[in-house]
């Protein structure tokens, strides 16, 4: 049984958490993530959350609390955005080092100074080297589905997972979302079985001092676990599709016949591109969903299969001094390809709105003789 509800992306995230059989939510509200916390608090107040809801005095404490609960074997969720995510930073590292399979929603918002509420992806991307899986969503339905899948993926790999979506364009957009009943979700994901690191009555010391050599072994094991994610994610989506009729990949490509150009982007902008495709000539879309691990193999396979000449990357972020982050990562993935495509980068840092007109304008500024250009949404 499924039913459509008109809800926003934040509510979709919260309902997914409630459906997932959550043991504990610890969070601190911040714009534009607030509605996730409000909705979960509302479930808790009505006795419908199915787990504990803990309100903390900061994001740092919220993730610390989550770490403790995850160590006890609990299924745990938190959500944040922007400065809240930055404030968690130390615990974000600790969480993945300790192999706590926590799922976090991060709602993209620019980081100050100055204050800006638009959906620059710099908050989540600045956490790319912390050992968390990262999956970017392009709409509320995807947010709902991905959060459920993230628990399955995360608990299997014993790696935390960040589910990322754009503030305002997704978090505050009301749209129809297909919500499965809780008992059907139970067929997809049962109670957590990853085991507790802390057992009452058995005192011990967790994550004590390690030598460089042991630390390297641990880092390597995390790295190898994460590299399993794309294949495992495909398997998880196979199960999800059998139950609910929807599936996603590490990347989702739409390549019309004869496509020579691909637009690569992540998040809400992917849907705008998808909508524009019928109006563009010989152009396809590669929606980057999984950013960590970076699906280099899958990307190269699509680019080679369709013999793509040019890629336009839409980056709603900028690594200052290096350029758009998705473009940087793509270029690195192309190393070794016999005929790598040209990579042009439309940088919408600050969270600038992507319109059909902007896409067409950018595509017109990519002559074939140029291998790489940097374009900015606002001159």
């Amino acid at each position: 049984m499924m039913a459509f509800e008109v809800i926003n992306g934040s509510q979709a995230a919260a309902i997914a958490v409630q459906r997932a059989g959550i043991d504990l939510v610890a969070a601190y509200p911040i714009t534009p993530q607030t509605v996730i916390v409000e909705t979960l608090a509302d479930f808790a107040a009505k006795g419908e959350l199915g787990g504990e809801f803990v309100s903390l005095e900061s994001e740092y404490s919220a993730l610390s609390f989550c770490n403790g609960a995850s160590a006890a074997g609990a299924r745990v969720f938190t959500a944040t955005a922007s400065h809240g995510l930055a404030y968690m930073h130390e615990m974000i590292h600790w969480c993945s080092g300790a192999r706590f399979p926590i799922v976090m929603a991060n709602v993209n918002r620019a980081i100050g100074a100055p204050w800006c509420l638009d959906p620059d992806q710099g908050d989540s991307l600045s956490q790319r080297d912390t050992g968390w899986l990262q999956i970017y969503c392009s709409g509320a339905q995807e947010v709902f589905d991905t959060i459920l899948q993230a628990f399955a993926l995360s608990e299997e790999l014993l790696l935390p997972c960040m589910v990322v979506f754009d503030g305002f364009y997704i978090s505050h957009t009301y749209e129809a979302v297909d919500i499965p009943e809780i008992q059907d979700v139970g067929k997809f994901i049962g109670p957590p079985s990853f085991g507790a690191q802390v057992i009452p009555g058995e005192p011990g010391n967790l994550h004590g001092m390690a030598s460089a050599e042991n630390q390297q072994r641990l880092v390597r094991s995390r790295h190898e676990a994460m590299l399993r994610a794309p294949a495992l994610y495909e398997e998880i989506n196979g199960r999800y599709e059998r139950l609910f009729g929807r599936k996603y990949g590490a990347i989702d490509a739409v390549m019309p016949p004869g496509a020579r150009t691909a637009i690569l982007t992540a998040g809400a902008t992917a849907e705008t591109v998808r909508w524009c495709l019928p109006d563009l000539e010989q152009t396809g879309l590669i929606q980057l969903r999984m950013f960590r691990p970076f699906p280099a193999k899958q990307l190269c396979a699509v680019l080679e299969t369709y013999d793509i000449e040019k890629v336009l990357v839409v980056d709603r972020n900028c690594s200052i001094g290096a350029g758009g982050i998705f473009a940087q990562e793509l270029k690195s993935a192309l190393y070794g390809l016999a005929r790598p495509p040209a990579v042009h980068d439309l940088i919408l840092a600050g969270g600038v709105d992507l319109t059909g007109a902007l896409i067409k304008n950018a595509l017109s500024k990519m002559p074939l003789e140029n291998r790489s250009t940097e374009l900015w949404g606002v001159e």
Partner: protein
Amino acid sequence: MNDRMLEFRLHGRGGQGIVVAAAIFAEAVFLGGSYARAFSLFGAERRGAPVTAFIRVSSDRLMPRSRIYQPDYVVVCDPTLTGVDLAAGLKDEGTLLINARKPLEERFSWLDQLNPGVKIYALDATDIAWKHDLAIGSFPMVNTVMLGAMARLSGLADRKYLEESIRKRVSSKIEANLAASGEGYELVKEVDRLAVRS
């Protein structure tokens, strides 16, 4: 791109329920069998500050996830808004719905500048809201009145679905809101462009 997509932009003030109104309209459209999305422009929201909300309606679930720059409909919920270009980007054959007393006051002189193809509709939603005791303090809540008028003009939301969604999403004075919405539906009138301020 989908030519059948219709876009609305709503202008009001923080506290008037503009964002809720957009969500109600989107839900009513969806219950009627089309797809709709509602969203708001994000600022540091506070009571009385200008608020902009958007609605997209389409027969297709796939829609762009960008702001709306060339709306088919502009809905002005608060007649006292200043410093906002209310008609910005309104399509040449678009529709403007304003909450205003008749005859239209001097502050609406900008209506003369609109493309001749724009249809203008008005109703005194503030008066209807007061009549139904729909106010928070001294702040008349005109959102459900405007929803009735929007449903009438666009033909996109069936009254029974509008009622269903208002019942679900409005937290107090539900019957008064439904009555006010019904009056908005009945009382909205086209403004004669030639006699706009006579």
